[in-house]
């Protein structure tokens, strides 16, 4: 068993969206939807200005609110901590979409709820997720939090700061952002953006 997690170093992310494009190609994400997207946010006021490029996707929460609300068990958490959807069980009721605090799920036109899987099919082959493999700045790393040899630990130890999205939701995300450009960390709402 593993406890899979992903780190994204925002100090190195340039928002090129290669990860998003790789995800679409790898997972045949239908047009008009996304398992992964980039949020670009201008922060501060001249001359103290920065831009946050923030890739967002399913955080594969340790306590995923999308799982217990599912009436058929389609939305589930694997022993390795992946939050996945069994399409054949999904009735497309969207309860999981309602429960997800991160807009990480969408309705696949084929009639089931879809989301990032951390490329579980690639993990099964011993490969990294497509978004990690394709990132040109190397700002993403994927691994097992329970594995002391995983590069995750070195990245975490060297990070100036570590943030998660909406920690107040109590979801314990396993996608963590390192070195957020703003000293205020990740902003949840437009109203919190420095200006």
């Amino acid at each position, binding site marked *: 068993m593993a406890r899979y997690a992903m780190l994204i170093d925002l100090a190195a992310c340039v*928002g090129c*969206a290669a990860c*998003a494009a790789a995800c679409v190609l790898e997972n045949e994400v239908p047009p*008009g*939807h*996304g398992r*992964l*997207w*980039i*949020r*670009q*946010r*201008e922060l501060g006021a001249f001359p103290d200005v920065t831009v946050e490029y923030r890739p*967002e996707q399913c955080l594969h929460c340790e306590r995923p*609110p999308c799982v*217990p*609300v*599912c*009436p*058929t*068990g*389609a939305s589930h958490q694997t022993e390795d901590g992946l939050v996945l959807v069994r399409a*054949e*069980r*999904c*009735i*497309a*009721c*969207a*309860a999981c*979409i*309602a*429960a*997800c*605090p*991160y*807009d*990480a*799920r*969408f*309705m696949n*036109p084929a*009639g*089931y709820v879809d*989301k990032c899987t951390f490329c579980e099919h690639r993990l099964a082959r011993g490969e990294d997720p497509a978004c990690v493999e394709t990132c040109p700045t190397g700002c993403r790393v994927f691994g097992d939090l329970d594995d002391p040899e995983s590069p995750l630990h070195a990245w975490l130890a060297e990070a100036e700061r570590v943030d998660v999205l*909406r920690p*107040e*939701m*109590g979801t314990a995300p396993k996608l963590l952002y390192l070195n957020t450009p703003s000293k205020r960390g990740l902003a*949840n*709402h*437009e*109203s*919190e*953006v420095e200006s």
Partner: protein
Amino acid sequence: MTTFYGLPGAEAFWHWTTLVHFLLVALAGGTAFYTAVLGIRRAASARGLAWLALAFIVLDLFMLWAESPARFRFSHVWLFLSFEPASAIWWGAWGLATSALMLLLLALGLGPARFWAGVLALTSAVVLAYPGYALAANAARPLWDHLLLAFFPASGLLLALAVLVWLRPAEEAAPWLQVAALASLALAALYPVALASGGADARLAFALWLRGWGWFLLGGGLLFLAAFLARRAPALAGACALAGAFVLRSWIVEQGQHSFFVHGF
């Protein structure tokens, strides 16, 4: 300023068809509950009404299936092959199914009618309760406050009574209608207070409510009229209750699903 490359899944996930379901499930659950109460008192008097409640359930279940993007994948069978007690919709599926069975037995006059009515009181209460539970369970949607655990059953019963005052002897259902209208009105009045005193997103939730306060004025006014007219002009009171409760429930379902995370303020 925030821009995106790609698309977060922030679009509305429940549509007007879902609002119709929220109406139908209230008519189904409320009529079934009223049938159960009548059946416990005097079993024979509930037989006719049982057919009506059963019709509402069948209509609602059909609507649920028909509006589901998964309808032709026939995955709904998993609702009854799973044990998911933390899921409001799972409770709803079983609540509707068992209520339908109890209503059928009552309507056909098979078996111990008062016992079936007692069971139906429980299962129909589940049907009345689960829509509010399905909303309130989502901490990520601050407009779907825990107060909805009470408002949706109360307004659901009110919707059913609004129809029953037309179909039943009005003097029988009118007092119930008055009580349900007053309870719904009180809960609707408390709703913005509950939002503003909620958790971290209370300020945003209340600000969003302020954008729709006119709907609450309209819905609340109709509920007040329903309570006021319940004994004087039951048919008119029923119309007011139906419109008022539908407006309030629909606004809450429709507006509450919008993503605060992606849109902010």
